[in-house]
């Protein structure tokens, strides 16, 4: 008894409040606070505001939020350009991402092999994703120029473009072969293709640049997935007598499917919500709105036209796709966690 009485709790007399910062329940939320506040203020609140705008008559001049019901949506849908933009957005997204999936599988196949100059090739094929999108599109704007396009020059030299009779006809071995194949002047008999000046070709160009831009992203995601396939499994397939295509279709692609879905979803996000490409490449969705997309149309209506309500209503159409993608992404993340 007498000995235990001398035992004094170490913490006695220490002011416990001094240690409040060491408590996980306090420190955790505290450290998270700035980020959460920032996201709520600059993403959460604007998201709500976007919905409010879409059902109000707000303009740049008069920002008061007077409820007008679905008037903005009716106005938006009633507008022919909106319908073109909606169709374009869906078409650009789906078509470009299907092409990207195909090409990304091929490119990942190439980059997973060993060959000379692979590092340089990898750097170069990543360029469309790693450079600022506006500047890359600027490069395309000049590459697809109506007069000075180097592609047009190459086509002219190959006989694919330009007159097939008369003094301006180009003659060389390549163009002879091209004409023999019946491909002479397939891009027209004029001196230029006019990539960005005709609606159909302008749409094709926008599509092409979307593919160009998202292909590297899909490829590196697939490459990351490929490295996750155990070497033993690939070796086993080899020993089991599977040839290149059997390995590709029975081992590689099935094992890559979940990660392909991830790449596809990201591709959807980035193409569906993009406005930079038509904005720069076809000078805000031209010619005559033939390459208009939802995002650029929202910008033109809401920011340039000053009609905040209608712009917001157009932009709201991006939302269901985003929500769907986010939900799928979460499911994929959860599935890979459990397996």
């Amino acid at each position, binding site marked *: 008894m007498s000995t235990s009485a001398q035992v004094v709790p170490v913490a006695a007399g220490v002011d416990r409040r001094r240690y409040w910062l060491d408590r996980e329940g306090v420190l955790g939320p505290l*450290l998270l606070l*700035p980020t959460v506040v920032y996201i709520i203020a600059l993403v959460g609140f*604007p998201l709500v505001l*976007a919905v409010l705008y879409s059902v109000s008559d707000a303009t740049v001049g008069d920002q008061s939020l007077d409820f007008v019901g679905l008037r903005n949506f009716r106005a938006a849908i009633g507008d022919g350009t909106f319908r073109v933009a909606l169709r374009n957005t869906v078409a650009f997204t789906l078509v470009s991402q299907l092409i990207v999936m195909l090409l990304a599988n091929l490119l990942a196949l190439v980059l997973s092999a060993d060959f000379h100059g692979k590092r340089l090739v990898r750097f*170069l094929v990543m360029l469309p994703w790693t450079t*600022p999108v506006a500047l*890359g599109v600027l*490069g395309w704007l000049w590459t697809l120029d109506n007069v000075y396009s180097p592609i047009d020059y190459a086509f002219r030299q190959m006989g694919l473009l330009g007159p097939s009779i008369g003094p301006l006809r180009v003659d060389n071995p390549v163009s002879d072969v091209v004409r023999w194949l019946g491909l002479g002047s397939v891009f027209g008999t004029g001196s230029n293709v006019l990539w960005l000046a005709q609606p159909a070709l302008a749409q094709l160009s926008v599509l092409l640049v979307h593919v160009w831009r998202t292909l590297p992203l899909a490829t590196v995601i697939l490459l990351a*997935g490929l490295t996750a396939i155990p070497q033993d499994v690939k070796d086993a397939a080899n020993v089991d007598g599977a040839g290149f295509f059997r390995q590709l279709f029975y081992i590689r692609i099935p094992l890559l499917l979940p990660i392909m879905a991830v790449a596809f979803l990201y591709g959807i996000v980035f193409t569906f919500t993009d406005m930079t490409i038509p904005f720069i490449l076809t000078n805000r969705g031209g010619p005559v709105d033939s390459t208009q997309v939802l995002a650029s149309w929202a910008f033109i209506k809401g920011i340039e036209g000053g009609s905040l309500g209608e712009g917001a209503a157009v932009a709201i159409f*991006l939302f269901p796709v985003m929500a769907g993608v986010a939900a799928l992404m979460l499911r994929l993340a959860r599935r890979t966690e459990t397996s």
Partner: protein
Amino acid sequence: MAAPVYRASLPDANELARERRRARLRRFGGRSVLYSAASFFTLFAALPFAWMLLTVFKQNADLYDPNHNPFLYNSPPTLDNVRLLFEQTQYATFIRNTVFVSVFVVVITLVATVPAAYSLTRLAGRWGESLGIAIFLVYLIPPTLLFIPLSRVVAELGVRNSWWAMVVVYPSFTIPFCTWLLMGFFKSIPWDIEEQAMIDGYSRLGAIWRTVLPVSIPGLLTVVVFSLALTLHEFVYALAFVTSSAEKTISIGVTTELIRGDVYFWQSLMAAAAIVAIPVAILYNLFLDRFIAGFTLGAVKG
């Protein structure tokens, strides 16, 4: 069940020779296809950049003649176009604005993400990971959905039409993205070292400062690189919030102020793009693996 007769399947000499020929042919064919495909993809990806770089040093008389082979220098290369860009345009101003915006965004991102990522990996327990993914998904909310309401926010804050608008808005996507990246880093650091520091008498914050941060320097560097890269990549917000040319950053300055349809100006324009695009690409490329590790949401290990 009667077992099938165990059959030897040894190839005979002829068969072997045939197999050998076939293997050689297949190897050769495979290599040819491989190199052709690599060339095709490289050409497709690099074409606009190659044309960009080629254009920069061309003289007017050479470039603006449709009969000249555009892939060659028909007149000697010149630096005049680059000089023109810096001396007669606002390019230098755009660069200056970009640097200011970048520095502020990087600092804000670091200050917000380091504590947040730490909290989510170490203190938030079970739902830290889910919250982290939720925050990452915020990154996917597109600027094109938010620019209209944000223009109001920016106006209310009194930074409309100034590069401060970008300083305020850009962290809304750099923070979610970098928090998630940094979480990956913190997860890979063993808890032992900070617990050891706490047992040795440091407070939690002291332990973070002295043990976690020093070993996370590659992670912090990644945050710096990606908040910088995302800032330089951004186009839509800048376009929506800034109209006066003295406040513009490179990506909108170059595309809105320097495009002059009527004047032959492409060399300088391409110089303006290349000067920024190439360094950003190199920097980005160095950290690409980190980027992908974050993007795949941990669906791919390693």
